[in-house]
């Protein structure tokens, strides 16, 4: 087939209009050529014999009449061993390699292979000659980091295939053909270690989707106890700037109990990615004892990188997540921030002169967001094992107002909502997840009734505190005042967590159960004080002891001592039956 080439007839920002003569496919990739660089772009609309393409790079220097070569392929990513520990841009260019080649700046039009072509992998075949396989079945494995990376039958193959040839165990690069397959019609396919998959299409080579029910322990107390996330669940973290979205995401990426973490820095600051980039290789994963970087992958399309690639980056990320899910792994995608992605859609929609919806976001915003979050989930694979993709997306609402379209569209499709709150972050109450506004539909690690009781205390405490602002402390009854102190105690010792302290930063599920039961005991105890000053003093002291308790490891002698002190303090003021 001869090359399908069109000509540019219009340029508006990163949108080019291209006149074509041969057939063009919606969403296919084209390359706009200027001088000696070819700029990657994607067809987003076709009208008559003009196609409109969004260019993933800066378009300056392009001229009317410049050629655009259509590739015939959709925007795709490379899937294979060697993805982990990598840092890619939104189009899966490895950034460290790019830096080696281009220096300090990102040169447009430079595209590198996502996977290392030099590296050899120790391949062990699993499928044998004559086996009948379908898409997603394991052909063999290679060790990658801490687990076996499955080399699978290409996902694009439909129907049943027979293995006609396999390679012996050995050391190969990713372009190695590891098996040849043939179907009933006699089509032959050579399966390599690496395969490509279009990013905007979900990978569905599994038996069925299941309901997410297992809690995913993030070791953040307010999340696991009050607003839990399930493996395979989806949740969102909206919040105004400075409320701690990114810090929360970083903590989660360190401590979450999953096999693979994918961080998608989408339109955010480069500095934050740099922290992850430089720190993770130094940190050890408590689960495996190896470097945290070995289970982490970063897709980084920061705010100053081209907007269209930002739109692609979340899809690149979720596709890689789905790929690892196919290996029976639990994968977590942390997307920061989905608002920037929505804004990228808005910019494109504006250039296409589509009729705008609310705040000029396109009318299809909701369905696009819903389709993205639907790519999370738990699945049962064809071999009976399960894998999951959990998606946590931050939302950066304009002005911190949750009524804006992106937050609202997201809330409709997620299973948990961790709303960050300006007042809480201003009061340095971290994590600043609002305990009354947030919600979760997933089951948690702690007894549900205890949590319901604690929630009641928080609500009542809030009411009392509102009332006290009007009538003052003098006008509040001591019973109400104690309720208020209890809610403040719960807030200070359990909801707040010091993310910079070695022990306090991560509270495991067992510890949460244990500590929360103790705190529940305090919340429900009937306590008596002669006056409000005595009550306040006692609670302040208890808060300080309990905070110290949070700072020691559970197996230490101090842990026991402090617990006994808490018990003794409680006994002093409790009603004696």
């Amino acid at each position: 087939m001869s090359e399908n080439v069109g000509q540019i007839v219009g340029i508006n920002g990163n949108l080019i209009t291209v006149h074509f003569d041969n057939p063009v496919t919606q969403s296919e990739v084209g390359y706009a050529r200027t001088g000696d660089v070819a700029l990657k772009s994607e067809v987003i609309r076709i009208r008559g014999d003009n196609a409109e393409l969004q260019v993933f790079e800066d378009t300056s220097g392009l001229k009317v009449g410049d050629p655009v070569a259509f590739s015939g392929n959709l925007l795709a990513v490379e899937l294979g061993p060697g993805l982990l520990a990598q840092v890619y841009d939104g189009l899966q260019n490895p950034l460290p390699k790019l830096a080696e080649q281009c220096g300090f700046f990102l040169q447009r039009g430079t595209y590198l292979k996502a996977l290392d072509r030099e590296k050899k992998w120790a391949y062990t075949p699993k499928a044998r000659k004559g086996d009948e396989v379908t898409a997603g079945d394991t052909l063999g494995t290679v060790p990658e980091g801490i687990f076996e990376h499955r080399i699978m039958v290409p996902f694009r193959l439909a129907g049943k295939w027979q293995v006609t040839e396999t390679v012996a165990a050995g050391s190969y690069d990713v372009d190695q053909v590891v098996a040849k397959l043939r179907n009933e019609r006699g089509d032959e396919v050579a399966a390599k270690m690496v395969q490509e998959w279009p990013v905007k299409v979900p990978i569905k080579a599994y038996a069925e989707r299941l309901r997410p029910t297992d809690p995913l322990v993030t070791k953040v107390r307010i999340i696991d106890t009050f607003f839990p996330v399930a493996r395979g669940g989806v949740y969102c973290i909206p919040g105004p700037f400075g409320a701690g979205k990114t810090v929360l995401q970083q903590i989660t990426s360190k401590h979450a109990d999953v096999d693979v973490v994918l961080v998608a820095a989408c339109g955010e600051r480069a500095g934050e990615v740099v922290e992850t980039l430089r720190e993770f290789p130094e940190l050890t994963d408590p689960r495996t004892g190896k470097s945290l970087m070995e289970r982490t992958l970063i897709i980084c399309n920061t705010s100053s990188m081209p907007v269209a690639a930002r739109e692609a980056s979340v899809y690149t990320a979720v596709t890689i997540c789905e790929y690892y899910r196919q290996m029976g792994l639990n994968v977590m995608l942390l997307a920061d921030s989905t608002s920037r992605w929505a804004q990228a859609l808005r910019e494109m929609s504006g250039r296409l002169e589509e009729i705008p919806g609310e705040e000029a976001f396109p009318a299809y915003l909701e369905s696009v967001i819903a389709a993205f979050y639907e790519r999370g989930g738990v699945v049962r694979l064809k071999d009976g094992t399960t894998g999951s993709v959990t998606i946590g997306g931050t939302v950066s609402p304009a002005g911190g107002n949750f009524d804006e379209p992106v937050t609202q569209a997201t809330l409709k499709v997620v299973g948990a909502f961790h709303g960050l709150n300006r007042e809480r972050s201003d009061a340095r109450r971290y994590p600043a997840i609002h305990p009354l506004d947030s919600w979760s539909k997933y089951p948690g690690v702690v007894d549900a009734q205890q949590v319901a009781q604690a929630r009641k205390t928080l609500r009542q405490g809030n009411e009392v505190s509102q009332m006290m602002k009007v009538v003052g402390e003098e006008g509040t009854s001591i019973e109400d005042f104690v309720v208020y102190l209890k809610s403040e105690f719960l807030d200070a010792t359990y909801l707040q967590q010091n993310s910079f302290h070695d022990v306090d930063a991560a509270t495991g599920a067992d510890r949460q159960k244990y500590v929360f039961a103790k705190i529940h005991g305090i919340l429900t105890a009937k306590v008596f004080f002669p006056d409000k000053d005595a009550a306040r003093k006692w609670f302040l002291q208890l808060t300080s002891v309990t905070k110290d308790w949070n700072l020691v490891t559970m197996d230490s002698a101090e842990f026991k001592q402090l617990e006994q002190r808490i018990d003794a303090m409680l006994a002093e003021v409790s009603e004696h039956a």
Partner: protein
Amino acid sequence: MHKVYHRIEQIAGNVITVRAEGVANGELAQVVGTLSTSLAQVIRLEKDKVFLQVFAGSRGISTDGQVRFLGHKMDVSFTEALLGRVFNGSGQPRDNGPELDENRIAIGGPSVNPAKRIIPRKMVRTGIPMIDVFNSLVESQKLPIFAAAGEPYNELLARIALQAEVDIIILGGMGLKHDDYLQFRDTLEANGALSRSILFIHTAADPTVECQMVPDISLAVAEQFALQNKRVLVLLTDMTSFADALKEIAITMEQIPANRGYPGDLYSQLASRYEKAVDFEGAGSITILAVTTMPGDDVTHPVPDNTGYITEGQFYLRNGRIEPFGSLSRLKQQVNGKTREDHRTVMNTMIQLYASYKETLEKQSMGFRMSAWDNKLLRYGERFEKEMMDLSVNIPLEAALDLGWQIMADCFEPAETGISSKLTEQFWPKQTA
């Protein structure tokens, strides 16, 4: 020889349209009007229709005016000779000095590869306790000053510029009052800093399009110096004028506005400028301090709101003081652990006590009775505001920490501050007033 086009089809706002062929997106052109000759930049192409934004504005351009395409993008001369000079938004001298034409560099270049950045770790000392102690400025940080109109933000910028230990200062002025520009220049000159400064000034009377160029031109020059191992401080004032210039062009081009008339890509536009702040691995750095005036003192206005999501913190300037609440330097954790061991403790304790003071003030205003503790707080708060928050205070970090201890010691018992006994034994002043 470049072809000259004589037929201008449309003039709307500062955008003109001509029919021409072989023109590249982003290319510069020279437009000759009856009043003056100006540069213009291609912003959109539609078949043979070319849309240009005219830097000097479209006033005085006639339909038979001359348009000559120059075949290159917007650029600026980069030489040591820039130092001590003043230019406008198109890079033309506005100080009667000679024009510079050697070593042209393109402006608005590609962004830095994140893999080539390093974690910033050098503090920029300013002598202002509210910054040094409470929200340390870090090299390569991008930080806006949010202020309502009328606050002394330009004075603050000038002070930081003079005191910061940097090699080169670049001032990008957008929509500046002419008086403010002169004041900046005179302050720099009086303190002998003009010779290491470069000024790109757009005043309120100059054409809007030039306003739009100021950040790009300032940052392009800054980037070149940083690559030569220089530590550069870029001051931009006022970014709200820049955003308004973007808005003006967007509306002229009939783009659909997103929020209060601002274009949908406001975030990306601001980010591509702020993200130029960088600490290069193995070279210099760029630190950006920018003023963002808040129309109506409203932080949810699109410009401060989008800025807050981009920058690494913000300073709120209110009633002539840097507000301790809301002001934040996201990078302070990188440096304030390595200054003096009591730095973080003083920072946290003083702010907590100040917060308690604010609560007490509220109680007082509602007529509740003041306890002995309340009275201590009132005394503390007053001294804190006078001796720490006032912008005229100019002391090094260590002196500011000592002062902090002194103020606390004059008002409280050690145990009342909640500071661990280990630190109070070491730092609590022995003599109290």
